[in-house]
């Protein structure tokens, strides 16, 4: 009787292990085909202007925001994808996750490529592409936001450690 119970437990245990291995294998192999990392971008921007833009109240002590943006692209499209934004109210445990697509033109450059980072119930963030490695924050009128002596409204591509 005890031997039968032991055997059943053993079978369940082996089945569970096999299931986990299968899940991990498929999970890992599926991820890269779902999305491809375009880049990781970091930067420090002034706080008050972006808080106003994002319609999020902050205290007057907030002088800078540290950002980290992961841009992912759909494998079949270079003009859309998903993103993960960390910084400001979007903490590590609760990042801003959403979809992006590209639009063309800023107020001063009709040919500029702009990433529009959509977010449900909130204003999109607009980032002008500068070369392959720089992103500039745009305001409502699609002008590059003007920073100060200490911080600018730009993100820079950084190597992923």
């Amino acid at each position, binding site marked *: 009787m005890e031997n039968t119970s032991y055997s059943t437990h053993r079978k369940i245990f082996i089945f569970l292990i096999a299931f986990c291995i299968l899940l991990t294998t498929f999970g890992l192999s599926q991820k890269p085909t779902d999305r491809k990392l375009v880049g990781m971008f970091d930067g*420090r921007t002034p706080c008050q202007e972006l808080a106003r833009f994002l319609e999020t109240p902050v205290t007057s002590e907030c002088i800078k925001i540290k950002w980290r943006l992961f841009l992912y692209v759909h494998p079949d499209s270079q003009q859309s994808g998903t993103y993960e934004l960390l910084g400001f109210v979007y903490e590590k445990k609760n990042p801003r996750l959403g979809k992006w697509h590209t639009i063309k033109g800023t107020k*001063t*450059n009709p*040919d500029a490529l702009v990433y529009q980072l959509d977010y449900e119930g909130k204003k999109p963030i607009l980032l002008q592409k*500068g070369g392959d*490695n720089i992103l500039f924050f745009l305001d409502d009128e699609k002008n*590059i936001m*003007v920073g100060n002596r200490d911080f600018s409204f730009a*993100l820079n*591509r950084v190597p992923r450690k």
Partner: protein
Amino acid sequence: MVSFEKVTFFFKIILLISCSAVIPCRSQNSQAVFVGSTPCDSLIKSSFQIPRDAGCDFIKWELSMSESVGELNTFQLFALFGISQPNTNGFVHGGQKIRITGKYLTHDKTDQNPNARIFELTSEKFQSPLLLMEMDKNILHFVALDRSFLVGNGGWSFLLNKVRP
């Protein structure tokens, strides 16, 4: 007895003459001032002839560029560089000062942005010219000699912001 109206009229005339004399003067010598903090890249170090082993995390810039028409374009640069003082926006021991004056040329159109201009800053104190791309009237971005954007890091970007008048 001089009437109040006459005195007021006299002062109005004086004020008009003063304004007409001062205002064109200001517009002829107007300057655009750009500020910002950038990394201490090897290209910048080389331009400023800062020794390679000198402690330099970042540079704070104040660049004044003349906007006069029909005259030589000149600039004045005041910069501070050094090791970043943790938890502040400043430098350990206040940083080292640089004061440079020079001239700049304007190059129209680039491959990356046909609407952008490039400012080429030259000075006797520079080993090589500094190049700045005008993203719009308020933003200048440092570019390399091949006109590619200099890439910053998580702390600082290679960007200067116009000081609002």
